């Protein structure tokens, strides 16, 4: 599908299909603007007027100008570290861009972004970007979001040849192609990834041909010929706008400056001959010659007049930047989160009304459905969350109600679809990026931490990415090292992320509904161990505000802070302690960021003792964080050193006995509370500073607990008989029980091993129960309608 560079030029040397004169002159003028702007910026940089470093666009102007000539202000471009040219080509004000390079208050991002983080909502500039390939997926989401909002605006991604070997490129192109996303991908192939030649890092340096892998058109053009780029982009734009899907354009070009200002022009990786050859193909000189000699639509004087007009523009831009004030240091803390951080719906006074008993997954699903009905711009991206209803049945029926365009089944491309979620959510849509397990979030950590979390801040509050990252989190019955983590301290560490760890179905639903109206990215960590739990959920609209803790149990003697599945463990421990005359108060913060420290302080003022119980690890964790906050805020209230109990500092082992040894359970919480009250809190050993001693902590491993935390114990056989028990099988991790819906055999019937004898319905599926042995059905312990825990006996067979 690639069109050769030569042929694409031949097509219009006849000039029969030339656009009108003004279009061509505008292309020339815009290229001159880019060149002169960068030249002035280069001088300013050398004088030390610009903080940081600059990556100049000199030599590549034809690509940015040829592409952006087709775009409206409501289309968006995503860009690269070498993006000043894209910003100007898209229409950003030169003075305000220059001021941003100077780190000044009048810069397009108020001085918070700078050269590699230039954003401008008014012209559709999604941002230059310090991270290679990060913006490619944003363009996919921008296009999909516009489509969902009923607009034919498109997303266009600029990136370099270096990005073409990055997962972000491959994931985004594949996702865009299968979604027919209204997007165009522009690879500016300048032959070197910083200083690494393209040919040395791929055996297929023809980047346009990579499009074939994803079933989309790939076009290679002379990136120094603005008209060739213009023509290729014309077709790609029409294709994207008309719903036919994305196109990859490879623009072969060259930067005639060093990688960054101060880097040698040739360096150790390029030759003078190569540089000279490309300078002869300077995009502006070539186009000037064409306009005058080939197309005959302008003379040298007319073009010189354009150049002197631009000279004035860039001089004014420089003066504007120099005269702009520095940002006020007093504003440094602004624009981390929306202010207020909660959406209006969550700030409404809560009316306590009717409730009903609901399972966790049902409650959250209802919340998402309610919000999706209210806001047609919500898109849900996830692996298997579409027609199949999700791995945990956590999106059951949403695809049926909202369709494939909104309940988007994604490839296993966490980076690709999370980038799309960032792009869509920042441009008018709202998105859920469902990553299935919290562990998988690290596959797209850059999009969460470097793109979504920072967007509001680096644009001085002019943009934000109100997306929800939804994951099942935490340990549950031997999920193993890659499916058990919860990681909320990792996320809470990053300014700009809201982190929720609910503990009840009502809170899970209420926080999800708030998240879908919030102004910032929300990490929604739903403990898998609670998916099978049930609770009272308010009927009707129910929003839980961020940063408001819940007092799960009032008490007077000790404060226990616990989140997620630790809340239930802490409540159980509180009952044990109550029998000993210790009245524990359990505080569930519900959101880790923002953290409702005031409620914890108020509790400690009452109890004067504190134990933090947390499923995440201790190192740099919640226990230390809260304990130190109490030192700072309520030192004089402490009658004992605060204690902390965390999951042991190991990966999650598979063997159940090891996993139990690692996790905090009810008995440990109760003992921890007693120890704090005795003035001797549990001493953690997570520092691993063994020094000259053995690396193995001296504390002996605790004896394994008798019961499995978080799971109901299998019921003992109903009758002490010698028959072979028929049991509800252990199966899906997130299902804890099922309802007997049918017995296919009666007591006394002969059964063969493998015969279908009963059916049990769980939240996710109907489970067929087969006879474990050949014999006679001797007992039906659980009749139709009975709710049976996993592993529980339902009947027996005598041999």
């Amino acid at each position, binding site marked *: 599908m690639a069109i050769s560079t030569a042929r694409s030029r031949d097509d219009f040397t006849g000039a029969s299909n030339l656009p009108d004169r003004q279009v061509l002159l505008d292309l020339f003028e815009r290229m001159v603007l880019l060149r002169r702007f960068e030249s002035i910026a280069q001088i300013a940089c050398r004088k030390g007027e610009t903080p940081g470093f600059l990556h100049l666009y000199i030599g590549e102007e034809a690509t940015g100008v040829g592409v952006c000539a087709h775009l409206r202000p409501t289309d968006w471009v995503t860009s690269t570290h070498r993006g000043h040219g894209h910003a100007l080509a898209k229409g950003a004000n030169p003075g305000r861009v220059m001021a941003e390079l100077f780190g000044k208050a009048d810069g397009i991002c108020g001085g918070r972004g700078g050269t590699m983080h230039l954003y401008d909502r008014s012209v559709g500039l999604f941002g230059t970007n310090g991270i290679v390939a990060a913006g490619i997926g944003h363009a996919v989401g921008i296009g999909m979001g516009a489509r969902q909002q009923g607009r034919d605006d498109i997303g266009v991604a600029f990136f370099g040849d270096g990005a073409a070997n990055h997962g972000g490129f491959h994931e985004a192109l594949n996702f865009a192609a299968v979604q027919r996303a209204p997007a165009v991908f522009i690879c500016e192939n300048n032959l070197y990834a910083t200083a690494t030649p393209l040919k040395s890092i791929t055996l297929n340096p023809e980047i346009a041909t990579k499009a074939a892998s994803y079933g989309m058109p790939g076009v290679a053009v002379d990136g120094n010929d603005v008209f060739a780029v213009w023509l290729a982009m014309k077709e790609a734009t029409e294709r994207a706008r008309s719903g036919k899907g994305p196109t990859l354009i490879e623009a072969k070009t060259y930067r005639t400056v060093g990688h960054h200002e101060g880097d040698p022009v040739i360096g150790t990786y390029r030759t003078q001959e190569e540089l000279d050859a490309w300078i002869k193909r300077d995009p502006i000189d070539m186009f000037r010659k064409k306009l005058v000699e080939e197309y005959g639509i302008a003379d040298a004087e007319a073009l010189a007049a354009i150049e002197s007009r631009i000279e004035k523009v860039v001089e004014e831009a420089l003066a504007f930047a120099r005269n702009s004030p520095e940002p006020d240091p007093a504003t440094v803390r602004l624009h981390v989160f929306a202010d207020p951080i909660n959406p209006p719906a969550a700030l409404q006074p809560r009316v306590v009304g009717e409730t009903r008993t609901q399972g966790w997954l049902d409650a959250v699903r209802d919340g998402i459905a309610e919000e999706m009905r209210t806001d047609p711009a919500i898109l849900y991206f996830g692996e298997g969350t579409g027609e199949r209803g999700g791995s945990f049945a956590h999106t059951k029926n949403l695809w049926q109600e909202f369709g494939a365009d909104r309940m988007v089944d994604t490839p296993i491309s966490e980076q690709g679809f999370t980038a799309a979620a960032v792009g869509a959510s920042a441009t008018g849509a709202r998105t859920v990026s469902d990553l299935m397990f919290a562990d998988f979030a690290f596959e797209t950590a850059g999009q969460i931490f470097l793109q979504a979390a920072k967007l509001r801040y680096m644009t001085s509050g002019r943009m934000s990415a109100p997306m929800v990252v939804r994951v099942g989190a935490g340990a549950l019955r031997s999920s193993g090292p890659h499916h058990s983590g919860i990681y909320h301290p990792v996320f809470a560490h990053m300014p700009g992320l809201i982190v929720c760890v609910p503990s009840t179905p009502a809170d899970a639903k209420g926080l999800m509904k708030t998240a879908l109206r919030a102004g910032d990215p929300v990490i929604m960590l739903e403990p898998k161990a609670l998916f099978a739990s049930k609770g009272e959920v308010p009927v009707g609209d129910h929003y839980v505000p961020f940063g408001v803790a819940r007092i799960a149990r009032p008490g007077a003697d000790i404060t226990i802070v616990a989140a997620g599945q630790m809340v239930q463990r802490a409540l159980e421990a509180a009952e044990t302690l109550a029998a000993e005359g210790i009245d524990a108060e359990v505080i569930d913060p519900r959101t880790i960021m923002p953290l409702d420290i005031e409620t914890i302080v108020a509790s400690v003022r009452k109890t*004067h003792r504190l134990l933090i119980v947390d499923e995440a690890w201790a190192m740099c964790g919640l226990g230390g964080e809260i304990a130190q906050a109490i030192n700072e805020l309520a030192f*004089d*209230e*402490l009658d004992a050193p605060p204690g902390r109990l965390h999951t042991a500092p190991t990966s999650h082992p598979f063997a159940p006995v090891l996993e139990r040894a690692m996790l905090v359970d009810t008995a440990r919480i109760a003992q921890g509370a007693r120890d704090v009250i005795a003035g001797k809190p549990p001493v953690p050993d997570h520092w691993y500073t063994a020094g000259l001693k053995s690396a193995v902590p001296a504390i002996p491993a605790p004896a394994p607990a008798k019961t499995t935390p978080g799971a109901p114990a299998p019921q003992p056989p109903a009758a002490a008989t010698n028959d072979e028990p028929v049991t509800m099988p252990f199966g899906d991790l997130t299902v804890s029980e099922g309802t007997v819906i049918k017995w296919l055999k009666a007591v006394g019937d002969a059964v063969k091993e493998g015969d279908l004898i009963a059916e049990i319905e769980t939240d996710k599926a109907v489970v067929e129960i087969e006879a474990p042995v050949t014999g006679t059905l001797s007992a039906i312990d659980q009749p139709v309608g009975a709710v049976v825990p996993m592993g529980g006996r339902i009947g027996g067979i005598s041999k």
Partner: protein
Amino acid sequence: MNIAVGQTRRLAVSPYARRLARERALPLEALRGSGPDGRILAADVLAFVPAAAPANAPDVAKAAGIAIAAHRIAAFAASLALGAVRDLLAALASAGKTFDIDDIVLRAVGRAFAENPVVGSGAWVALELGGRQMACPTNSEMPMTLLRASRLEALDRGSDDAEKPALLSLRLLPAGDIRPMMMALLPGRAMRLAVTVDGVGGHAECLLATDADSIDEAAAIAWLSSLKSAIESPLRLFV
């Protein structure tokens, strides 16, 4: 400085217990800690039966006596020759610089603390004046004239510093040949020193009472010995 910081044996007190004791003006030294390694906890403060606010001095002594009765009190006596002091004060007065025996004793107390840091910090002592106490600095780095000025100023102010932290309370009495024999500690004070001076200023008797639970007896003896030596060779107090 918090009283406990300078104690011979550092008192372990939970922050909340410390706050409760401060609010109740209870001497931490008088409390028995029930926490790990004798840490004083809130419960120990709350269990301590606080005396009702005393209406007059005998009641204070009575209440304190009850409170301290649970503790061991050590008492040490010393006789001081004041001849050198008397001569020195007369010489200074003739040179236009007036000091009282009170200034000398306060200064000597500061010196005794400086020489016996193991006893505790005596940066401030409470001077007993009939129904009230007056906190006086004893800083041995400070010129005598400043110390005196500060004492006279406090005297004029007339406030009661009974709740201000100070390890030692000091009673100066004109008493002829009478020796003090026994006395209780005041609330919040682990040491009490009574000095009786004879009519002509040639001789004084000292009685030092200490809380033996918090101040080592040998240290108390060394302290009293420093005091005696400082007062009997008063020139050293002016350098």
